[in-house]
């Protein structure tokens, strides 16, 4: 990525998301929470899931981290609402898989697509994956 590309990416995609993150607050109640923590750098978020009749009704998040991790979690939260846990597992699996592999898989969501294109972002892929990995690990280990 050139400096111009980096600036464009942040200007158009990351900073807007970062400044107006989706559901960035600590809700009063939650059906369950997930911790997303990167010990290497100190980024730390709590994800708040609300469920009703097996569906995720809303996802909130709150915490501290870089623009990338925040933007990525913001996009993730939005995309996960109204999904079943099974679909969430599939979505996070697919996201992580795409980030780790040479070959890409497409995603209908334009913003997720944008994140996935950053798979070669030097040293920052962990920032982008942070929230998704926490969700993936949670649902993998949960009884669905």
């Amino acid at each position, binding site marked *: 990525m050139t400096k111009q590309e980096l600036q464009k990416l942040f200007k158009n995609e990351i900073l807007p998301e970062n400044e107006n993150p989706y559901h960035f607050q600590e809700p009063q109640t939650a059906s369950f929470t997930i911790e997303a923590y990167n010990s290497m750098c*100190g*980024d730390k978020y709590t994800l708040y899931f609300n469920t009703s009749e097996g569906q995720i009704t809303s996802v909130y998040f709150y915490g501290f981290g870089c623009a990338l991790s925040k933007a990525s979690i913001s996009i993730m939260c939005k995309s996960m609402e109204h999904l079943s846990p099974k679909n969430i597992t599939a979505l996070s699996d697919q996201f992580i898989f795409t980030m780790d592999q040479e070959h890409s898989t497409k995603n209908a969501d334009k913003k997720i697509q944008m994140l996935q294109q950053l798979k070669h972002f030097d040293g920052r892929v962990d920032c982008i994956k942070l929230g998704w990995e926490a969700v993936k690990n949670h649902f993998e280990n949960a009884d669905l």
Partner: protein
Amino acid sequence: MIGIVKLKYSFDIAEKLVLLKLNKNSIKKVRSHFPIFEAHPNLVYLDNAATTQRAQSVVTAQSHFDLYENANIHRGIYDLSNQATQKFENARTEIARFLGSGNANTVAFTQGTTASINIVAQSFLAPRLQAGDNIVTTIMEHHANFIPWQMLAQKYQVELRIVPIDKNGDLDLVQLSNFLDKKTKLLAVSHISNTLGTIHPLDEIIGLAKRKDIPVLVDAAQSACHFEIGVDPLNCDFLTFSGHKMFGPFGIGILQVSEKYLTDMMPYNYGGGIIKDVKIEKTSFRNFPHNLDAGTPNVSGVIGLAAALEFISGIGKPDMQSHLNKLTLYALDQLSQVPGIKIIGNPKRRIGIISFNLKNIHPHDIASFLNKDGIALRAGMHCTQPLLNAMGLQATARVSFSIYNNEEEINKLVVSLKELMRFWS
């Protein structure tokens, strides 16, 4: 057919020229000894606290040995092995001298600072701990000088006493003094903080411990390169540092032990080279430092480390220190003009390392943007999570200088940071 280009044996000549005397003005031209800057002419390398770059003479000494003089040591009788053994033991003597000691037997080779500290924890301290004892360290330590004590404390039901800092990033010496008592089995403290650059007043600190006859470990990872160190000059008992933070190779470091505690050092790993006698029932071991030499030693790494110390001595620590001092002051001054910057800590004495944050911009994002301008700095917790937690911080951006850095590079840093602030807001 095998295609091969042979690097000529006349490498020898190159080596001699590379090692040509450094003199008083060396510091100005020192950059030319670091080929990485030739390969990356626009590189502004400000991550020296993580690792310095490698001097040409170090790499040449190592690869020359590897290519033309390589042999295992440990009492081989043929010429190559003998010469390697001599080089290895000469290096030990040279390193002792670098540490102001005439006793090469105070110097053990390890993998680095982390290994050295773990060895002291297991081979010296663990056997003498009893429930109710305490170990004193500080909140400002690198994980390498914190977790080993924490783990011992848990295992042996010993109290870990952690000296706090004031808001400037200076150690609370009153508290430190209060912590030291009859049950204190070790004081472990760094010379220079790798996150704030604080220079701890070792004279005073070690004096407090010595009055109570408490053994002191000094983590000199950040000072060995520019400060006069050694268990004798510092009057401490254990001294640790890493080659790779002083122009030398990865994978080699030093543990120096004061004569007082030499015989208290037990083996760490078990294997060849540390043995007096192996019977089916029982094995007896050699004395320190040889009881730490289990397994084939990193001969090439030791030779590289010796070359690094020779390089440093050639330039002279006083010159290096004053260059770093000048750079640090200049950087503090210039950085303070960046809008939205917060420089972390304001210790009484500091050198070479500055942590800062920019308003609303996470250190990782700073690092990504500065990388595009060729500036290498570090973002994160710098293996000092207790310190950051205590200061209410999650991460910082950190610049750290070495002898090849200059004011022009600091200017570039400041320009980049200002541009980033403009871009972000």
